[in-house]
């Protein structure tokens, strides 16, 4: 809002917003700080804010003791794999809905959305049973497929809203010039659609990384990603605050960084284009 406003107001706004912002961020900040303390300092009374001996020991212990790297790779494979797979399936679907719409397009989009609202517990046992029968329980492949399916509606929707913004005139011009469907997609559409596809992938990667129903229920030792790894800290290791903090920091840091880039996509992706 381009309104003239006194400096005093601005100072009050700034102070209030920063205080609230820091308060909301504090649990994360505190976790990061605690990860650099020794266990004794982590539970010291009164609590230590910055005046402690910074140490990387917790990170070393977590990395050595718990095979952290495997959980990390599982997370990367599952989140990355489900995202790639989802994009491969969703791009053609969203493309055809955006550029060759029919009377049914709206119904199909809404129906896809409705599958996202199916509560997971409603299908928990069948999926569990099918996974056992197909040998997919505790496998990266199985989890990748499930996470792809639960996020597919969001991917299709996001891509659809992005593709909708591409001017159709350009496609028509390409068609007039005799471009085939294939070259139309490859040379005209793809360059214009890439930013949207990248944003969609980013948001989907975040959602898949943090998913904590199927990852907890369908994995054990082998395919468990970071969500399950952290849950295993529940007790009694959870009482070792410094190590819990180090493990937590490592699990959330990559996503915090990615997340900060995806604020706009978050609104678009999770409101299905209804809030702009």
């Amino acid at each position, binding site marked *: *809002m381009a*309104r003239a406003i006194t400096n005093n107001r601005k100072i009050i*706004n*700034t102070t*209030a*917003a*920063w205080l609230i*912002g820091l308060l*909301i*961020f504090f*649990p994360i900040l*505190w*976790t990061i700080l605690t990860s650099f303390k020794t266990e004794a300092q982590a539970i010291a009374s009164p609590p230590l804010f910055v005046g402690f001996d910074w140490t990387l020991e917790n990170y070393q212990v977590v990395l050595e003791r718990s095979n952290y790297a495997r959980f990390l790779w599982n997370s990367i494979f599952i989140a990355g794999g489900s995202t790639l797979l989802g994009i491969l*399936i969703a791009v*053609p*679907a969203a493309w*055809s809905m955006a*550029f*060759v719409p029919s009377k049914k397009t709206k119904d199909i989009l*809404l129906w896809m959305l*409705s*599958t996202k*609202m*199916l*509560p*997971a*517990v*409603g*299908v*928990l*046992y*069948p*999926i569990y*049973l099918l996974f056992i029968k197909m040998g997919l329980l505790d496998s990266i492949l199985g989890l990748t497929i499930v996470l792809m399916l639960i996020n*597919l509606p969001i991917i*299709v929707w996001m891509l659809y809203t992005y593709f909708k913004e591409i001017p159709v005139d350009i496609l028509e011009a390409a068609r007039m010039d005799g471009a085939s*469907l294939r070259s139309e997609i490859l040379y005209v559409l793809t360059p214009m659609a890439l930013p949207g596809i990248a944003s969609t992938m980013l948001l989907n990667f975040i959602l898949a990384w*943090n998913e*904590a*129903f199927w990852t907890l*229920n369908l994995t054990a030792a082998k395919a468990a990603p970071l969500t399950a790894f952290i849950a295993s800290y*529940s007790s009694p290791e959870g*009482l070792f*605050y410094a190590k819990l*903090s180090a493990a*937590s920091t490592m*699990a*959330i840091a990559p996503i915090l960084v*990615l*997340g*900060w880039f995806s*604020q706009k996509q*978050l*609104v678009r992706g*999770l*409101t*299905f284009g*209804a*809030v*702009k």
Partner: protein
Amino acid sequence: MATQHSRSAARMMMAPAVILLLGWMLVPLTMTLWFSFRKYLPLRGGDMGWVGFDNYVSFFNSSSFWPSIQTTLLIVGGVLIITVVFGVLLALLLDQPMWGQGIVRILVIAPFFVMPTVSALVWKNIFMDPVNGLFAHLWKFFGATPVVWMSQASMESIILIVSWQWLPFATLILLTATQSLDSEQLEASEIDGARPLQRFFYIILPHLGRALTIVILIQTIFLLAIFAEIFVTTGGAFGTKTLSYLVFQRVLESQNIGLGSAGGIYAVILANIVAIFLMRIVGKNLDT
């Protein structure tokens, strides 16, 4: 414009996504429906045949059913009230001119990106532990007796944790909607002598109407299904067993598939009631 050729090509391109989602929805849901009519205890006798609506009746009549509905509604309602009220206030504040707006936005949005198991565990241990938690230190500092959060105030704790996770979502969406408000309209009302409260109720709130509805509906759908936050903190004890969690326990912990499946169908129905409203709004938006 679209030729017959491009139409059939379009159908082909849509097919994989449609077929996969159709399978994902129909196959397991049909199985759940099937199991819900059978007495099925995999570890104690297996599938013991058709029992009609018995599972639905016993799930409904079990002593855990109504408490679980109550818990679910309390968590959903509590989190909604907190996130919507503070979300609106925060969105209005963040929309004001200030220094370092971008950074504050980042600070506020951050909790949404923390994985649920991490936020649950960090809050439970590092903040709410009755001996070493930060809250215990704070309480002792003011001479109060530390609260044993997970047992004495289990619902409050879970509502606090979940609200912390979802406040960023509400704020971000409401902020996006606030920013599209026509500032001239606000200025005009100011010149006409509207007081801040009047401006809020007659201009800002109506403008935020649709965003608010969307926030409430989407959060409700996600909140009905929260799992990790309960799994990691109380494990469903101390009156924190939601309908979803109850179904999870019946299915995987006590392996009473028939009963759990009936509960699952109840959960599906509950979610669908909310979903219908959301779909209507989203659908309307597609037309414009």
